[in-house]
């Protein structure tokens, strides 16, 4: 009998897409994150509570107007939920049956709250009474306040003690006393035709004034807002690009703003304070109630807690891979038990999927982030294209990365790293410039048997790198076959045989004895990726073309089985079990073992999978995941895994049972302090690097090319 499985989100997704808020006592930061609301402890940086209950994206959270320890959340699933965020208990649900884009409440209007309802043609702002939250839609007394609200409304609507402002791109509606105001009791301010569009808004906490941020970087402070004719707007201009977020401090004496430049600006009456080089565009700013802490959300999915004297106090990293399509896929690092993938621009992200903890971002390219002058023409950045991890030999573990600068088309670098046990960090060993002459690297594989690494390229070369004690990593062999592009490489589990996919042919080679094997397997179509089977399937080689999955028996040199699968996206292999998984473009997954043509498991996924990885685990209740669990990353960068249906409910219950601790545990303290440091020390160690020029290896490569040709003759 097949278990009925279901995928659940375990982590990932953006914590910076929507506004985060501080708790009233400034101890916690609450962030909407996918379908969850995460509660972070400001002191330790731990995610200490997950409010799990919405079945679609949570769009906005706000404080309950009366009860200090409660929050309201709105979601695309059409409900408003009331939570006790310290205990993580869902208190009540109010179903609107319409996707909700936002919710607003203010302590001055204790009985009402405001929601944005999404309908087909316009988004509408409604007011509803909070006194008793009924469960039936028909009982909710709503009154319409404004129509055609801009979709990204959380930054464009603001409430203060006496008034509320709804901004459109070039006009503003002001409601005085919004808890009673009717739809037509509003004051309209229209900007001039050539005025830049409004991007964000914030109300002064006490006075009758508010601030707007604009698409050209201007900030306007509006006074006299109840007077249509004599409204005064004062223009400040520092940002060169669009202002993305704007907040008054809780006393109203300063304004904080941030934009694409990655600089937090504090506007005082006559001067400005700057906190530059935050690393990415600032999407949101939150201010604690006592104005001592600011939470700055960055586009790279991290939140910085900044003190009022502009030092960074705490960093919450979400799944920082946000906004990329993960060119280097996901690798498993056995050292840290982490999944490794692209993180911040030029960084590798080490992430623990089972705990949804981000270990650190490792700076690979060591470039400063700068914002582009023109958003239409973004600056090119150096991407990490491939990453690979080697086994541990002589007590040393290696990693190799491949980076590529989009601006300088040929500027690719292969870097070899060593994990230093004494420093507990990755140390750069060797940089190889243009290992494949910029011809598009296709794979990077370490040998499980010794310190060898294979890189393959579109140009048709497979280069094999060995570590030498003095010179670092050198290319000792370069293989090619009929000038066909080399698409993938794989080692057999014992490391004795290297298989290379040249076009539609798989060639084999024994790198330890430096000789090619007189064995070739050909297929009619170009092979995209290959994997040797593991454990009991060591003798089997699985290859994927775009339409077909093939399995060869290497010992008998014959086709074992083949299966037609429509539009294969990618193939992954579990190194700890015999399992392999293939994903199609239509989001189907087939989990199989090379020894068996029939898949163990197939499923139609509801998410767009961009990458997936098997992670060793011992406590999974699914039979085929006994040794390792499969984690999926969706296009929206949320991390998912498979769960038995009965477990799903438990999982949400489980999250509540996590020990709540505001005390600083020794471990969490250590983690939070080392995260930043590791990345920085890696940078400083760059002096040790050694550079190897490929031209030195020419002697070896030409020799091997000859071998390659002799191979052809043999055919």
């Amino acid at each position, binding site marked *: 009998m097949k278990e009925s499985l279901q995928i659940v989100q375990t982590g990932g997704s953006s914590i910076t897409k929507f506004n985060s808020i501080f708790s009233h006592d400034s101890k916690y930061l609450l962030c909407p994150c996918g379908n969850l609301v995460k509660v972070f402890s400001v002191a330790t940086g731990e995610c200490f509570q997950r409010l799990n209950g919405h079945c679609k994206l949570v769009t906005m959270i706000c404080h309950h107007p009366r009860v200090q320890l409660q929050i309201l959340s709105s979601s695309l699933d059409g409900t408003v939920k009331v939570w006790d965020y310290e205990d993580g208990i869902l208190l009540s649900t109010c179903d609107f049956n319409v996707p909700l884009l936002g919710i607003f409440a203010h302590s001055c209007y204790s009985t009402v709250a405001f929601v944005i309802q999404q309908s087909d043609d316009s988004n509408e702002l409604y007011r509803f009474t909070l006194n008793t939250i009924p469960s039936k839609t028909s009982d909710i007394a709503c009154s319409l306040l404004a129509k055609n609200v801009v979709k990204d409304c959380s930054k464009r609507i603001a409430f203060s003690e006496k008034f509320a402002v709804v901004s459109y791109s070039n006009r503003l509606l002001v409601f005085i006393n919004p808890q009673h105001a009717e739809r037509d009791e509003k004051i309209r301010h229209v900007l001039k035709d050539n005025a830049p569009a409004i991007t964000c808004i914030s109300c002064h906490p006490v006075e009758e004034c508010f601030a707007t941020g604009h698409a050209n970087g201007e900030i306007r*402070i509006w006074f006299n807002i109840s007077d249509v*004719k004599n409204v005064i707007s*004062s223009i400040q201009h520092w940002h060169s690009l669009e202002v993305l977020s704007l907040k008054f401090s809780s006393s109203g004496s300063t304004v904080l703003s941030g934009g694409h430049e990655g600089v937090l600006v504090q506007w005082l009456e*006559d001067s400005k304070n700057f906190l530059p080089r935050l690393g990415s565009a600032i999407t949101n700013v939150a201010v604690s109630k006592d104005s001592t802490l600011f939470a700055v959300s960055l586009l790279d999915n991290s939140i910085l807690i900044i003190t009022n004297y502009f030092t960074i106090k705490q960093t919450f990293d979400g799944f920082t891979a946000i906004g990329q399509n993960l060119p280097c896929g996901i690798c498993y690092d056995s050292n840290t038990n982490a999944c490794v993938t692209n993180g911040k621009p030029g960084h590798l992200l080490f992430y623990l999927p089972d705990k949804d903890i981000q270990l650190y971002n490792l700076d690979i390219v060591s470039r400063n982030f700068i914002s582009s002058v023109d958003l239409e023409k973004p600056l090119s950045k150096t991407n990490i294209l491939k990453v690979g991890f080697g086994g541990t030999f002589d007590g040393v573990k290696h990693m190799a990365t491949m980076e590529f600068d989009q601006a300088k088309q040929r500027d690719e670098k292969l870097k070899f790293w060593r994990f230093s046990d004494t420093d507990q960090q990755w140390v750069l060993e060797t940089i190889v410039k243009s290992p494949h002459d910029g011809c598009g690297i296709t794979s990077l594989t370490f040998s499980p048997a010794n310190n060898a690494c294979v890189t393959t390229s579109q140009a048709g070369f497979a280069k094999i790198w060995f570590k030498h004690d003095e010179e670092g990593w050198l290319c000792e062999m370069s293989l090619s076959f009929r000038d066909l592009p080399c698409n993938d490489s794989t080692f057999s589990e014992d490391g004795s045989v290297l298989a290379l996919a040249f076009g539609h042919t798989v060639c084999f080679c024994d790198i330890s004895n430096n000789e090619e094997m007189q064995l070739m397997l050909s297929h009619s179509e170009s092979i995209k990726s290959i994997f040797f089977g593991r454990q009991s399937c060591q003798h089997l080689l699985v290859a994927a073309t775009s339409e077909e999955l093939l399995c060869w028996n290497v010992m008998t040199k014959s086709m074992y089985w083949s299966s037609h699968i429509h539009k294969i996206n990618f193939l992954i292999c579990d190194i700890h079990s015999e399992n392999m998984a293939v994903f199609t473009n239509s989001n189907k997954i087939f989990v199989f073992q090379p020894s068996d043509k029939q898949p163990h498991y197939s499923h139609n996924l509801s998410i767009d999978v961009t990458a997936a990885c098997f992670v060793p685990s011992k406590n999974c209740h699914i039979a085929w995941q006994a040794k390792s669990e499969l984690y999926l990353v969706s296009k929206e960068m949320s991390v998912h895994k498979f769960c038995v249906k009965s477990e799903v409910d438990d999982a949400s219950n489980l999250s509540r049972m996590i020990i709540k601790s505001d005390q600083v545990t020794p471990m969490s303290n250590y983690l939070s302090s080392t995260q930043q440091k590791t990345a920085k020390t890696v940078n400083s160690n760059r002096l040790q690097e050694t550079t190897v020029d490929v031209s030195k290896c020419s002697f070896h490569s030409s020799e091997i090319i000859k071998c390659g040709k002799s191979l052809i003759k043999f055919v």
Partner: protein
Amino acid sequence: MDNFEVDQVNKETEMFGSKAVKFYKISNLARLSYYIMSKFVVHRCRLFKFTPCAVQCMAASVETSDLAVARSDGSIEIWSTKYSWFQKLVIPGSSDHSVESLIWVGNRLLSGGLQGDITEYDLTDATVKLSVDSFGGAVWCIAYSIVKDKIAVGCEDGSVKMFDVKNKAITFERAFDKQEGRILSMAWHKSGDIIVTGSTDVVRIWSTKTGHAIQRITIEREMKNVETIIWSVAILSDYTIISGDSSGRVQFWNGKNATLLQSHRAHRADVLCLCSTKDEKCVYAAGVDPRVIAFNLVQEDDVPTWVKGRYMQKHTHDVRALAIIENRIVSGGVDTNLMMNSISEKVGSFQRVYSFPMKSLVSTSATKKLVLMQYSNYLDLWKFAKCNFPEELNAGRNIPIEDNPVKLLQIKPPSSDTNHICCSVISPCGNWIAYSTTSTLRLYNLQTSDELSCKVIRVRCVGLIPSHCIVFTPDSNYMITSTTNHKILIVHLVADTCEARLVQMLQLKTYTCITHLLAVSSTSSYLATANLDGEINVFDLTNMTHFCTLPKYQHTPSSIAFHPVTNDLMTAYDDLQVIEYSLIDKAYTKWTKQCLSTNNEPLLQTLRKGASSNSCNIAVVTSIRYVHSDEVDKVFFMSREGLYIAERVPNHMQDTKSHLGARFCHKFKPLLCTEFIDESTLFVVERPLQDIWEQLPPTLYQKKFGT
């Protein structure tokens, strides 16, 4: 289009007197070309190097909504702003007269300058009326109190002097206590009891009753050794004092107890001028950093706060003066133009008022191919460039120049006459040159011996009076001038004997203001005069009598001209309306009647659509030229912005369809002169704006993002 570059040393011209003639090198800046335009050959001349002067200060009259603008050469312009921006009159400056501040006392205009006196101007005559010593050295600032009917001046020696201005006089009344350092700025409170002055590092509040300082506010220094200069102060009726200083701050003070209310560092450099609106809810500040910034009063819970409002950045150079006229804020400075913005942010856009004078600075002699160019204190006489006309004339083609233009003469008033030239003209025959300063009118006879050398002889004539406007009759037998005492002089000229004789002095009793326009019909039989009140009179020159008076139109005429055949008088007004009057019928012509009945807006206004609307004064018609043929009349209305060309069937022909067409040609701009040399050649003098900008001083450095 190609422009011919001239670079050669001219032949030595004959010496005349000690200073009239000099050697010249024609630089490669002298640009000129012939250009064929439809059926005309256009001779474009860019030799005229006229550059307007920087605006020094401005004063808006409450009674007449006139704006007085003083420039750095000491000249004062009066702009009428009621209907449209029209430069009513220019009081020429002189080299020993500076204007540091201007003030309207009712309808009297007073100024103070660095030469240490208070000057009153005669606005009906465009001259200095009287001058009184300040008794304290250079005058830096002036303030007027309507309650006390007194003026106060701030002097170099650090004292405030009070003058009584009753009974059309200026009499010294008293001096306040002396302080250290010159008084640079001053404001008088509405009640008349308190005066605020600004000088280096300090703002003082004076009692006008005792003459003692009541309060002293020390302005904080930015750096220890650099003085803070308070360039401007203002006081509102609730005793709020506003100061603008050299460190770029605008500060608001409680005047009763001299405490700081608010300080705004909105400007990057010195704040030179301040100005508040009538309702005192908004204060404008401007300075070296060429932004005009509004500070608005926000009264929340009875706590007044001044917040920085919108800013306007249209000037390229220092803003030296601000004025408010009705609901508009006007600013002017080193970049010579006036900028106008509506006070309320929502209505209207900004407008630019160009500083080209209304009066023609260039006159030509078609027969001798000479052009006379008027600068503030000398005249240049040039001979046109020559060119060979090819057989075929294609529209839009450039014609190469055969002979370069030649500068023949430079005429300077004697050094004893420090006044600037207010008008000049060369006769159509090319034998006579006349110019007038505010003190003297001088007439010269021009004698040419050969192509490139000539000399001028001063012709003395009894009874000549300094004039606002001079014309020669087309036959060059008479010179007609409108004098500063509102008379029309007619002088008979005899070229052979170099004699001039005053033959007639015409005067109308109704004339109490300046006659700024004169026109003579082509047959030299009629003379038309127009004054600033809008009165237009026609005189018969054959028997020297008044012929008729035209119906009055509410706007000021900007140009008048006679039709070459029918002697119909064409008048262009400053609102771009054009009216033609028939002297025979003593009525509007049929064409005008038709235009008035069919068009809702002024005739030329309709043509101008599509041309720039941000510059408001530049389209005013400054001269009218006719090209007459049997089938069609062409009328050229010249404005600084371009040429309006109207074609029509001549009036005397009996045709129902009299209006053929009209267009606006703004290919050539800004135009300072258009003249027909012959029937097919149009001579235009241009002064491109970028050439003017090149001559202005450098601006305050401003960093731009990404540089």
